[in-house]
């Protein structure tokens, strides 16, 4: 307990504890998971046949790679796969054995750690294909280090994207402005830089892969991304206004995130559409994920990939349903951009993508707005236990508490199960619900 709500440091759990995946109900989530596995095997086959493969940061402009038909894998997505297969402790142990401290950023280094395994036969999904390009977004000082290690260990050429700073965060309601009014929302000089960075990326890819960017194709991809994200907005709005909630984040996260990793593809638009229609049908039929819903909860922070069953644990006893995570909400509010110039419009997507998620005051204003929209009664805030990603937890929590939403702050790691004590966390969160919410 600290002066800013609950802060729980995690002792290590017993060595034989294994997390569990939450039980999915939506066909769109099941379909997306199946598609992802097949897509990944396809990537592996293409790379084995001699094609290049890029490892990209979650907030690097993947649309360019799609337009150039260059296979790519998102660094943090692969970390989530490794973690959900309970392999993170083993891989991170290999990093530690090389002299890297155990509390360095696990989320962003797990993919690199997985390449150190001398016996890749145990790797999830057959393991990463051979990575031939690296495109990090320099969201923190560790990114350049980690991708530099890819370069040193595997000879992977790197093209980094700088992260410029929004100095004047006004107006606060960025989510109402960024679809069309992005030129005034973000400073033009920052957009100018990002356009130049994108041009540099195109040249880098053209030189390293021998493929050429088609602007016509890029324009089409930009349209498809907007179409996809408008479906995400419809879904978010529908879940927000429906009580009891038709689904929880156990379904919404895979249903939105797997298409997000394929944004700009026809499949992704169809998947987002199917997700929306499935939720709409559930609402029309009056189906609820928890008929006894009493407390609508929001999960702030990254997914707890090794133990998504935690999200469902509080439904039966407390009627506590996690209806909100940033994954669907950011798809709804963070990505769509409309404009005539595809490169500048793409620049407008990435210049400030995570400001609304991670940097006060924009993130705090958005979380409060989303809490109100979704009729949230309480929030869990997963703050990273390593030094990766500081979203200004004090300011986010204060804004929510000031808006009447109690916050339970957990300090832990979202991919490294070694830091998680499930029994203790379940007990503490139950106490929180009983003392501060019910």
């Amino acid at each position: 307990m600290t002066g800013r709500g609950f802060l729980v440091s995690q002792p290590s759990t017993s060595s034989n504890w294994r997390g569990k995946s939450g039980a999915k109900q939506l066909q769109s989530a099941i379909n997306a998971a199946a598609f992802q596995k097949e897509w990944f095997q396809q990537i592996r086959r293409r790379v084995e046949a001699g094609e290049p493969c890029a490892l990209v940061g979650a907030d690097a402009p993947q649309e360019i790679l799609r337009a150039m038909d260059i296979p790519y894998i998102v660094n943090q997505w692969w970390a989530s796969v490794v973690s959900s297969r309970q392999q993170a402790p083993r891989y991170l142990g290999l990093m530690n054995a090389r002299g890297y401290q155990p509390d360095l950023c696990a989320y962003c280094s797990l993919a690199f750690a997985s390449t150190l395994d001398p016996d890749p036969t145990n790797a999830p999904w057959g393991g990463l294909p051979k990575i031939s390009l690296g495109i990090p977004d320099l969201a923190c000082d560790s990114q350049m280090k980690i991708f530099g290690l890819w370069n040193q260990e595997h000879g992977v050429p790197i093209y980094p994207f700088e992260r410029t700073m929004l100095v004047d965060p006004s107006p606060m309601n960025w989510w109402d402005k960024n679809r069309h009014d992005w030129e005034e929302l973000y400073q033009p000089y920052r957009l100018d830089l990002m356009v130049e960075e994108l041009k540099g990326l195109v040249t880098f890819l053209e030189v390293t892969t021998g493929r050429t960017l088609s602007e016509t194709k890029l324009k089409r991809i930009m349209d498809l991304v907007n179409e996809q994200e408008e479906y995400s907005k419809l879904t978010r709005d529908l879940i927000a206004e429906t009580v009891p909630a038709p689904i929880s984040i156990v379904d919404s996260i895979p249903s939105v995130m797997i298409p997000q990793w394929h944004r700009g593809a026809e499949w992704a638009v169809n998947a987002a559409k199917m997700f929306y229609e499935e939720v709409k049908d559930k609402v029309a039929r009056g189906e609820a994920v928890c008929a006894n819903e009493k407390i609508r909860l929001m999960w702030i922070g990254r997914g707890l990939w090794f133990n998504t069953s935690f999200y469902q644990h509080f439904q039966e006893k407390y009627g506590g349903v996690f209806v909100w995570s940033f994954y669907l909400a950011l798809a709804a509010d963070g990505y769509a951009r409309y404009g005539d110039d595809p490169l500048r419009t793409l620049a407008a997507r990435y210049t400030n993508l995570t400001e609304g998620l991670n940097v006060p005051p924009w993130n705090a204003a958005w979380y409060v707005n989303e809490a109100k929209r979704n009729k949230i009664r309480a929030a869990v805030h997963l703050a990273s236990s390593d030094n990766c990603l500081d979203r200004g937890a004090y300011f986010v929590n204060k804004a929510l508490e000031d808006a009447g939403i109690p916050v339970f702050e957990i300090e832990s790691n979202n991919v490294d199960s070694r830091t998680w004590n499930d029994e203790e966390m379940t007990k503490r969160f139950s106490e929180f619900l009983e003392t501060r919410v019910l």
Partner: protein
Amino acid sequence: MEAGSWRRNTELSPLDLLKLNYRERERAAREWQARGGQVVGYLGADVPEELLIAAGFFPLRITGDPVSLTPFADKYVQRHFNPQARSILNRLLDGTYRFLDHLVIANSAEATVRVFVYLREIKRIEPRRDIPDFYFFEFLHTKFHRNAQYNRDRVRDLKKQLETWSGKPISDVALRDAIAVCNENRKLLAQVAQLRIESRISGVDALAIIGPSMGMPKNDHNKLVRELLHHADQLAPRPGARLFIVGSQLDRAWFYEIVESCGAIIVAEDSDWGNRAFDTLVDQTIAPLDAIADRHFFKAPSPYKSTVQERVEYCVRKAVEANAEGVIFFLLNGEDPPAWDYPEQKRALESRGIRTLCLDHQAYAPGDTSELKARIEASVQTLGTRQ
């Protein structure tokens, strides 16, 4: 503004005066202000002092304070927040820097960006008058030409901001003069670095010589260092195992004091509070603003904004140039970037026969240092055995 009058009528040696200003970091700035001058604090190693000087300000580099608790910052920051930045934020909130007329914060490290974000938000939701007026100076570090151009534009923006603060334009002559005096300072400190390689100045004394260059009028500092160098032939070589320090960028000398009490001498370091503070000159043959931007863009790679490979190359080269027998990694708890560099730096150094000692998860405050001292003594003795 004239240089400080404190120099007159004092029996203190140049080194003692430098040490005094190292201990009392705000001393000279407060004297400057008492005589009617304005003081601009700066946070981060990328803020160009030349511009602040040319605008007529006293540039004062912001530091933490290891011996003070951090209750004001603790309220806002995460448990794992960089402890040095935590201390700095605390001092910006506890009134230590209330006397500053303005503050410039650069994105030299992720931690300084966070300090900026925290300050901005604290000022927004808890209106307070004791936080100085501040400006964010953005500087890109990846080595692309477009970033160099972007930086030149940001330096021009900073110039405009300083002109707004001072109420008068910065002349080209003032800029060139400021560059000249800062370059002279760097050249003098390079001579100090050479004396360290000859073991004639200790690491503790070196920090006390270098540190005030970021907290004294440059002309005054130049004068003191010149006087000190003038008598350099009287400095006898010191015995001790020759060590190089790498890792977190310590703004205080307590760790050096412990190391050098163990029979070692720190002959150089990879720190922007040490030798990296003066390792690159501003080109005086090109347009001054461009030269200032380029100096920071092309200077030695910092632990925060460079790849592991760049850091390995730099660290090994500097350790070898200093003829170091051993290297100590001092890694603050909660500061990841230098910890990422460590394993490869260690391998590269040891492959050249340079022994290493890693002190990781270190506190910013000295506290009980007996265990730390024992580890260093054991390591130094090992080097002695080799000799």
